[in-house]
């Protein structure tokens, strides 16, 4: 180790650039948000984040994100399975298309989904007579979050399925396991950590999502107002302290999720190495 660092040059320069850049662009700005909360007394902070309108938006954001991440976990696993295991015409095209939500600007996704699910839209016009309203409801928010989160699950599960050898399943089958048994006893335990990571990534992305949701949500306080929108509303009213308090709770939740994801991946790597 010590010999390595002696041979190659550029340690000071590269570490210097990295730390300076991170401090100026990422850490200093993020630190402001925590220091700003000290402007508020604990009681004021508490009453801001437990205000019924704020609570309603937390509940909506976390609830819709959770639901969307669950749907993504189910269908993400299915899509990953089909892409890895089966050969069919257009497979590579479909594989490339899975990343569309990563590449498409969120505002474009937002207006497209809203137009699709509005009461006169391509999909909405068939759902409306059934009494299902999607656009401008919490269901619409979930639909947008499903769109945004899908690639996370597919892309974390895909490589694990790729590594899983067909022989293991064939062995299980030849030992008399039924197809469902093979899946639940052999395949599922292997992909479970990746699936959980994909779920957490999709969930983490969903709770912060703004662009794709803001058009379809309708933005009614207490009903369809997501947390990021509430923060923007408070900022526009120059209620910086209130916006900061609401944001800090979100930020702490996001960091806890990030920590969980890192621990999951670390545990998965250790299992792989063992």
């Amino acid at each position, binding site marked *: *180790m010590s010999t*390595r*660092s002696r*041979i*190659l040059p*550029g*340690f000071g320069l*590269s570490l210097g*650039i*990295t*730390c300076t*850049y*991170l401090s100026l*662009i*990422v*850490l200093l*700005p993020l630190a*402001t948000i925590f220091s*700003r909360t000290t402007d508020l007394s604990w009681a004021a902070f508490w009453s801001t984040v437990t205000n019924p309108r704020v609570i309603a938006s937390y509940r909506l954001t976390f609830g819709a994100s959770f639901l969307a991440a669950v749907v993504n976990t189910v269908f993400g696993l*299915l*899509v990953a*399975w*089909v892409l890895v295991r*089966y050969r069919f015409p257009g497979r590579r095209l*479909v594989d*490339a*298309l*899975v*990343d*569309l939500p990563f*590449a498409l*600007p*969120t*505002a*474009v996704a937002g*207006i*497209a*989904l809203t*137009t*699709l699910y509005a009461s006169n839209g*391509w*999909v909405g016009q068939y759902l409306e007579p059934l009494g299902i309203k999607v656009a401008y409801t919490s269901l619409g928010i979930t639909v947008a979050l499903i*769109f945004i989160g899908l690639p996370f699950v597919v892309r974390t599960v895909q490589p694990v399925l790729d590594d899983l050898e067909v022989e293991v399943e064939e062995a299980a089958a030849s030992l008399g396991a039924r197809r469902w048994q093979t899946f639940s006893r052999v395949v599922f335990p292997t992909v479970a950590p990746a699936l959980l990571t994909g779920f957490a990534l999709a969930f983490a992305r969903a709770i*912060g*999502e*703004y*662009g794709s949701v803001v*058009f379809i949500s309708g933005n009614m306080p207490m009903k369809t107002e997501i947390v*990021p929108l509430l*923060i*923007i509303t408070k*900022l526009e009213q*120059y209620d*910086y302290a209130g916006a900061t308090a609401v*944001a800090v709770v*979100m*930020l702490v939740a*996001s*960091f806890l999720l*990030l920590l969980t994801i890192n621990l999951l991946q670390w545990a998965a790597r250790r299992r792989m190495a063992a």
Partner: protein
Amino acid sequence: MRWVLITVALAFLAFTLLLPLVLVFSQAFSKGFSVYWQAITEPDALSAAKLTLLIAAVAVPVNMVFGVAAAWCITKFDFPGKNLLITLIDLPFAVSPVISGMIFVLLYGAHGWFGSWLMEHDIKIIFALPGIILATTFITSPFVARELIPLMQEQGTDEEEAAIVLGAGGWQTFFRVTLPNIKWGLLYGLILCNARAMGEFGAVSVVSGHIRGQTNTLPLHVEILYNEYAFAASFAVASVLTLLALVTLALKTLVEWYQRRSAHDLAEAKSTPERMAA
């Protein structure tokens, strides 16, 4: 069973991904080609496009330098706190775009930390170009580093060490040995970074102030047109961004293909040492 699964998966993807994609283009041309052309060539749209390109032209190269530097120190050296540094690099991915914009308002806005000082010196950051660039740079900072770190970790330090021992300089080693090894990974990171820089909405929306012809990016222009019920025009501009996304996907797929091929070549070269010598 197999065809049932394929059908369900494809139907789900067609419904969630393909349908919105088709809708964008169909709505964009719903009022005819002349309306479409006018929407994407009017002065406000052009200035929004120019601004979007300018933002990417600053954010992407800056994050490339950062990404390469970060990957170099993390993968070529051992030092305490390395894992913490990797986590810090990833941090912007965990932050909501709205909060990413907000932190710059708290720093440089009229009521922010440096607000009064900036006002005295007549420097505008929030509701102006610098704020948009800062927020975009923050959001896109992890892309290149994240792509390079696992790649360079896998490649190790043997080749660079050999070059140095044989008398090459530091930069020479980087440009002749490291760069050719990481070029596809680097390109991959740059493509993703660029797509996000051009498409970012939430963070930019907080810091831009939405001044038409001045601080309006293409995604914000889409929003303004949509909220004014100019749907055809809004989707026309959106279709330009959608094309950008499709080009991004195509390039990404191509780079992945080259990456696999060069990894394959490398594996072959390593298994036949005489070919290396030749």
